[in-house]
């Protein structure tokens, strides 16, 4: 176990070794090669890059160069990402075969490898990370250590003020003061619903019981969302430290992190972090020489979306089917194992240490009147800069899509953004200037959600999108309550009819009626929000629903049953590129004369449309 003095010594020593990662004026001879080890970059083989660098460093016997596997830098679309500090050179989409060149030129001779530098969306070459438009409007609080430290090295976390918030709480604050600080900061639950965090802590503190628990919801089920995973992969200690602070505030001595088994890297790094914290006495008995005792255990999920719902999560932690419980009693009164439990989501916890260290007034100066601080979004879909972004509350969707996200690829038009995943709604173009905060998003029929932000271009059919989400909720409904189990199924059947060109008069009204009933009568949040994608697409794209029913047409040209892929004979030059790329050999013709598509073979995949240099192929 380490004393406060020993921890300070570690901080000082490590900081002297790694401060060059933040210090742009550093003039020493050390170089740090930071390589992203998040799930996205790992999938594009960043591990091989790390190994190759290490091999070369060893071969050349360099003692001033280190390779660090970090958490997510955010710009997943350009992975694998390599950043060399202190000069902050940003190499994107590199391959293991490029490593030798980077090493020879950059590391050995100080020459930048221009060819491998990251390019911005407009094609301009970016020399350093800071120059990239993607980062300019971001404000990193939750992600401050992601891409900066080695998440598997507690010393590096300590160096950048790690466990100082816990020290402050344990040595100079009372439980009431901690809760007041959190309340005053205005922090609200980042899982999506936006319940005031301080209030939640107060409820858990007010419950009288010998045994209480804190729990962390890391069951990020929204498909296409990866905020919480990135925090756990990039900065796991920030969550552990915050859980310890919460435990001190409410009077708990045990914590559980419920995390998806589908996140092997996050689970591994979290376990490493827990073990290291135990070794340093930051978890266990007599933490930092005080009477405070706290430990954390990981509990694995196994692929059930409903387990993100707080009471279902608790059932699952206890080893049962993840079916929600009726509330009240609320978890603050009767939660895990029947004991008072405080449950927050990963991102909520990741804010806590900064609030304690910098004060509630600092935190509440960021954001809007009712939504304070920042929000992390996983930006995905039809957008140039797919990745992870952290923005101050109150920023507009337009800024996220165009300034940070770099706009829509392939020259297409923005159609809508989906927040809140299967529980949320879409935001059409006319609301691009809506500020991102809890109230504004609810007012337009969407929601903040946990942070999935999927951008759709004009090739997306909104009826089919609603069908996609309903298909998801039908699959994920636990089946405990009939409105959700049966109701969503009926809605899905109607939507399937619509996209298959078999819609009937009255289907829209039926959908609306079912939606209202399911919302009102479902047991948990999954059912209560399941109709939202249908309601919001109906609100803004009702004409598309009507076209599917009345004209049996899909205006976006996505629903295969109602579209054909056709070649415009006037425009076709007979180059045969379409026919070469067709995966089912449905396109025939003679060179230099117009080609034709065999409709009986065509699977309407659209590969030919994308490949045609003369824009002669389209869906009709």
């Amino acid at each position, binding site marked *: 176990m380490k004393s406060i003095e020993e921890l300070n010594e570690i901080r000082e020593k490590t900081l002297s070794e790694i401060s060059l990662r933040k210090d742009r004026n550093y003039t020493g001879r050390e170089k740090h090669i930071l390589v992203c080890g998040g799930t996205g970059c790992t999938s594009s083989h960043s591990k091989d890059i790390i190994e190759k660098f290490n091999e070369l460093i060893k071969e050349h016997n360099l003692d001033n160069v280190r390779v660090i596997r970090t958490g997510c830098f955010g710009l997943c679309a350009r992975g694998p990402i390599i950043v060399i500090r202190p000069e902050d050179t940003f190499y994107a989409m590199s391959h293991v075969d490029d490593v030798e060149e980077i090493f020879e030129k950059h590391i050995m001779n100080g020459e930048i490898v221009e060819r491998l530098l990251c390019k911005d969306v407009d094609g301009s070459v970016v020399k350093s990370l800071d120059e990239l438009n993607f980062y300019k409007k971001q404000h990193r609080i939750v992600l401050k250590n992601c891409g900066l430290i080695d998440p598997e090295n507690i010393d590096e976390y300590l160096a950048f003020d790690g466990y100082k918030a816990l020290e402050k709480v344990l040595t100079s604050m009372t439980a009431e003061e901690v809760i007041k600080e959190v309340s005053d900061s205005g922090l609200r639950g980042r899982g999506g619903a936006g319940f005031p965090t301080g209030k939640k802590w107060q409820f858990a503190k007010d419950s009288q019981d010998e045994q209480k628990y804190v729990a962390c919801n890391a069951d990020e089920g929204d498909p296409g969302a990866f905020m919480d995973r990135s925090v756990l992969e990039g900065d796991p200690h920030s969550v552990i430290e915050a859980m310890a602070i919460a435990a001190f505030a409410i009077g708990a001595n045990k914590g559980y992190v419920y995390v998806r088994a589908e996140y092997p890297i996050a689970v591994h790094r979290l376990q490493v972090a827990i073990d290291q914290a135990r070794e340093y006495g930051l978890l266990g008995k007599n933490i930092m020489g005080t009477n405070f005792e706290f430990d954390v255990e990981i509990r694995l999920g*196994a692929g059930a979306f409903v387990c993100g719902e707080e009471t279902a999560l608790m059932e699952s932690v*206890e080893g049962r089917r993840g079916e929600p419980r009726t509330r009240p009693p609320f978890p603050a009164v009767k939660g895990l194992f029947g004991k008072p439990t405080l449950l927050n989501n990963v991102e909520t916890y990741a804010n806590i240490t900064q609030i304690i260290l910098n004060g509630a007034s600092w935190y509440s100066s960021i954001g809007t009147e009712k939504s304070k601080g920042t929000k992390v979004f996983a930006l995905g879909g039809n957008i140039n800069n797919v990745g992870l972004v952290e923005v101050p509350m109150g920023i507009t969707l337009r800024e996220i899509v165009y300034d940070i996200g770099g706009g829509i690829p392939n020259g297409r038009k923005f159609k809508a953004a989906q927040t809140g995943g299967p529980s949320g709604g879409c935001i059409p173009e006319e609301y691009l200037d809506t500020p991102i905060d809890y109230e504004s998003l609810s007012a337009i029929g969407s929601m903040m959600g946990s942070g999935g932000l999927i951008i759709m271009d004009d090739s997306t059919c909104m009826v089919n999108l609603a069908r996609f989400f309903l298909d998801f909720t039908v699959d994920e409904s636990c089946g405990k309550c009939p409105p959700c189990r049966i109701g969503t199924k009926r809605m899905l059947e109607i939507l399937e009819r619509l996209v298959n060109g078999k819609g009937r008069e009255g289907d829209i009204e039926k959908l609306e009626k079912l939606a209202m009933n399911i919302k009102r009568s479902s047991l948990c949040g999954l059912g209560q929000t399941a109709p939202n994608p249908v309601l919001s697409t109906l609100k803004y794209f009702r004409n598309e629903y009507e076209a599917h029913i009345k004209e049996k047409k899909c205006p976006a040209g996505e629903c295969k049953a109602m579209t054909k892929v056709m070649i415009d004979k006037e425009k076709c030059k007979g180059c045969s590129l379409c026919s070469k790329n067709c995966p089912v050999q449905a396109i025939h013709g003679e060179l230099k004369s117009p080609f034709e598509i065999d409709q009986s073979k065509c699977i309407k995949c659209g590969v030919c449309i994308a490949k045609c240099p003369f824009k002669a192929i389209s869906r009709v």
Partner: protein
Amino acid sequence: MNEIEKKSVCTCGEIDDNKKKLLEVIVSVNGDKSQLMKVLNAAQEIYGYIPTSAQKTISEELDIPMAEIYGVITFYTRFSLEPKGKYNIGVCLGTACYVKGSQMVLDKVKEILGIDVGGITPDGKFSLVSTRCVGACGLAPVMTVNDEVYGNMDPSKVKDILDKYV
């Protein structure tokens, strides 16, 4: 021979390695029934699915009825009662992949392998699942073959990838 090894002896007289691994995990939870999910996740990894024999072992060791274990297994999509193919193909149908056309990739895999989602080829070589977000949204649409991730997919790339495993 220790306690675990004794329990792992198969009727043929040899030690059943899978059973031994499973028993080691069960011992590590110290009879804590609330850790059933951890044990089932381990069983899924060890066997590639959760066979009845493993369910029976878990039931006996943790004193949880078979029916309850079966109920938990069938609730979670990660647990499977059937073995998977040597190469398990996953096509991501998470939202980010879906809006970039992963359904067409999935349709193409189905067509080439002649199996539906959840199916397995008669030779046991390939099985097919649709997954919910593998987390590589930057590479969408994404297809996986066991642990290998293939990004920026389109239907025309499917055949070449599958051919590598035939």
